[in-house]
């Protein structure tokens, strides 16, 4: 059972009925927790055991550490070492032996997830301990709510990463009545998320996998260029599609999760990209790594910023995986952001002088190109494959494929089926990106509109790719 699959929706339906029949808040929380554990058990019993044990450990640790009014730094280091070691041991090191989840392709090709969402809820537990230590929040008193904050089935798989306290606050005010607003906003988000995943991302999957995983896939600079761009688009629609489904599902239960994307393809710089892409993760890294480091090194000014950027993205790369390809991906972004910081005055001056539309026309493609370049490392199976792609990309003598322009226009040198799916997928992706702002505006409209919902349903059913659409890319993290 994956998010967005038929059994997932059946689970939602059953949970919704029981949830709204009951008037008792505690019972509602238990229902959500039970549904979440059922969902996790579909992946593995280890997932259920791990999320429960890690939650109980963190819940009681914070409670007892603060009890004597003496939550020391050593205590914080101990619990967060346990949290991070669990993540490394359970997700990475054990997987080295059993599943080889070390690189993107290997991880993506695996059909089973050993421990669902551990990367995401570990961040939440670490943040919780820091917040309690720093006395930003009092320790949680509701164990069911704590486990639910980590295991909630709508978001356990791939986030969004959220503060446990912020999530639990909403559990205290769960809705008693099934309102039109919650239904409309929830179903609309689910439909749009499903369209992003099944109509657009899935249609690009075949070509992306071929270009990255097949030895004959990327033979020319042009195909490497297409590979980088297509993967970035696929990743966006796959991941943001999941987030939409997660937000929509939560909304049906009256829970509001944090937004994770904000039109990243309109960014004019890498720093803006990171303010629009995987927002909750970057907020976490900013709050718990970047700010403390920048504060500690504040006497060094620019150096402090640069060191903080470097450390933040290095940790982010390690969070994604222990493979060298992730580290190089992180280094790419460190380089981009350092260059951006050093050239900040010049770019700001240029931005002031230039017409905003013209500035966006020049810097948006540059930003996307830089991100796509880093994704060549992020998506490659191993370093040798990534370096081969980079070599091919810059081999200008061999840049264009050996086909005529008319042939390229006709089918891009592929068979009709492949080129049709690719071009149709790209067309739909462009269409979505053009109307993205308008679509985002509909997220706040809480009344059910027959024409709009009919349109979304027809588009999803008619254009969705349903076979094999089982895995989301970020599930492996």
């Amino acid at each position, binding site marked *: 059972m994956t998010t967005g699959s*038929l059994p997932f929706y059946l689970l939602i339906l059953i949970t919704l009925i029981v949830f709204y029949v009951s008037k008792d808040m505690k019972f509602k929380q238990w229902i959500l927790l039970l549904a979440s554990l059922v969902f996790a058990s579909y992946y593995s019993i280890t997932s259920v055991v791990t999320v429960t044990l890690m939650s109980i450990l963190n819940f009681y640790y914070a409670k007892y550490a603060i009890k004597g009014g003496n939550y020391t730094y050593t205590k914080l280091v101990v619990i967060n070492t346990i949290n991070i070691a669990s993540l490394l041991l359970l997700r990475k090191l054990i997987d080295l032996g059993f599943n080889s989840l070390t690189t993107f392709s290997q991880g993506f090709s695996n059909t089973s997830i050993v421990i669902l969402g551990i990367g995401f809820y570990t961040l939440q537990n670490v943040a919780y301990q820091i917040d309690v230590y720093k006395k930003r929040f009092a320790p949680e008193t509701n164990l069911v709510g704590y486990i639910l904050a980590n295991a909630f089935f709508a978001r356990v798989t791939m986030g969004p990463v959220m503060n446990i306290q912020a999530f639990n606050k909403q559990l205290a005010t769960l809705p008693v009545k099934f309102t*039109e607003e919650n*239904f409309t906003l929830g179903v609309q988000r689910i439909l749009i998320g499903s369209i992003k995943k099944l109509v657009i991302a899935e*249609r690009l999957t*075949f070509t992306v996998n071929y270009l990255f995983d097949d030895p004959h896939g990327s033979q020319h600079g042009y195909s490497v260029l297409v590979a980088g761009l297509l993967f970035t688009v696929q990743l966006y629609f796959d991941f943001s599609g999941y987030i939409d489904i997660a937000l929509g599902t939560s909304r049906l239960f009256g829970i509001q999760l944090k937004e994770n994307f904000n039109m990243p393809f309109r960014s004019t710089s890498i720093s803006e990209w990171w303010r629009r892409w995987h927002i909750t993760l970057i907020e976490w890294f900013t709050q718990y790594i970047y700010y403390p480091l920048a504060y500690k090194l504040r006497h060094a000014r620019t150096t402090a910023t640069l060191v903080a950027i470097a450390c933040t993205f290095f940790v982010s790369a390690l969070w994604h995986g222990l493979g060298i390809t992730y580290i190089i991906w992180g280094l790419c972004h460190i380089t981009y952001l350092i260059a951006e910081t050093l050239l900040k005055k010049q770019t700001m001056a240029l931005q002031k002088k230039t017409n905003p539309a013209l500035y966006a026309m020049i810097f948006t493609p540059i930003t996307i190109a830089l991100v796509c370049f880093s994704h060549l490392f992020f998506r490659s199976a191993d370093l040798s494959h990534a370096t081969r792609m980079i070599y091919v990309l810059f081999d200008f003598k061999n840049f264009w494929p050996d086909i005529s322009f008319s042939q390229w226009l006709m089918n891009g040198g592929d068979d*009709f*089926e492949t080129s*049709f*799916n690719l071009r*149709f997928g790209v067309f739909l992706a462009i269409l979505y990106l053009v109307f993205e702002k308008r679509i985002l505006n509909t997220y706040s409209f809480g009344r*059910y*509109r*027959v*024409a709009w*919902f*009919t349109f979304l*349903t*027809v588009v999803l*059913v*008619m*254009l*969705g*790719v*349903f*076979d094999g659409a089982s895995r989301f890319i970020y599930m492996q993290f």
Partner: protein
Amino acid sequence: MWYKVLSSLIISAGILWGAQRVAGFMMKRNPELKACHVTQTPVNAEILVHGSCEPEYMIDPDVIDSVTSLKTYNLASDHSDFADNFLDFYLYLKKQKDPRYLFLYVSPPAFDKNVSNIFQTFKYVSFMDDPVVYYTVKENDPYFTTVSNIPFVRFSYYSHFTMSKIAWGAGSFMLNSHSEPKHPNGFRPPIPRANNPLNEFWSLMPEGGKYTWFDIREKYLRKIIELAQKHHIIVTLYESPAYFGNQPVPTNRGEFEEKIRRIANEYHVQYLKYDDLEMAKDPSNFFTTVNMTYKGAMEFSRIFATSINEKVIQKTNQQFLKHTHTSNAVVKQDKL
């Protein structure tokens, strides 16, 4: 609110149902799908060659025409298994005149559970209203059959394959409703390759591997033979040469061949094998273990045509003449 939700569901279902009818109509007009082509355009062959990629890439019906003087059509399609072959054959017989001969490619790997050829549901989505197609699809792809009851999902479920085929069919219908397929006689010559990828193919083969018998394949092989015999079509099973080079042959290949022979004997049909041909020893004739290059395919087509002419067609004609002669003699004697 529920009234509005119900309204949008009913309207969506209506639109999707209409779209399903249009998509079915368009997909059937796609001449490149053999199942669709043979239900739309008269073929009326005397000889049918059938099976998966091996006959599709290797048997040129024009060569058989020239040797036997009988109109031949290649109904085979790549990646197909016996259930596909059964449905293609069933749909062919539904619209075309019964052929006299059916030559069906059968080989030990075709019964192997791990072979990449699988039932390709998407080819039959526009024929789901036919009960034989429906039950065959249901047996081979039960989950699809369940979800295909939702309007249009039968077309969108395998959207990767069906959308392009609907588009092609629509184009074909709008430009010329009787358009011919790219390969009118069904033979799809293998695309010439700069490098012979045979070595790459070998690297995928496990050493000392074994085939695993898949019962459902046997079931559909039997169904093809039974359907043909019900239509009085003379069935011949055959296996084209395979090139193993220095690679170890799967240890139970002989056992599988024996099983095929037993099935052939049970139905009194011939099982022809061509593995002792001289051309089977030349790697330049192959691009995989079982698929030949264009040069190899043309050479094998000639050998195959001559062989079936001698071993099947002439033999049947002689038997027919002998039978007619004997019958006439009996009639004459009776008259006397």
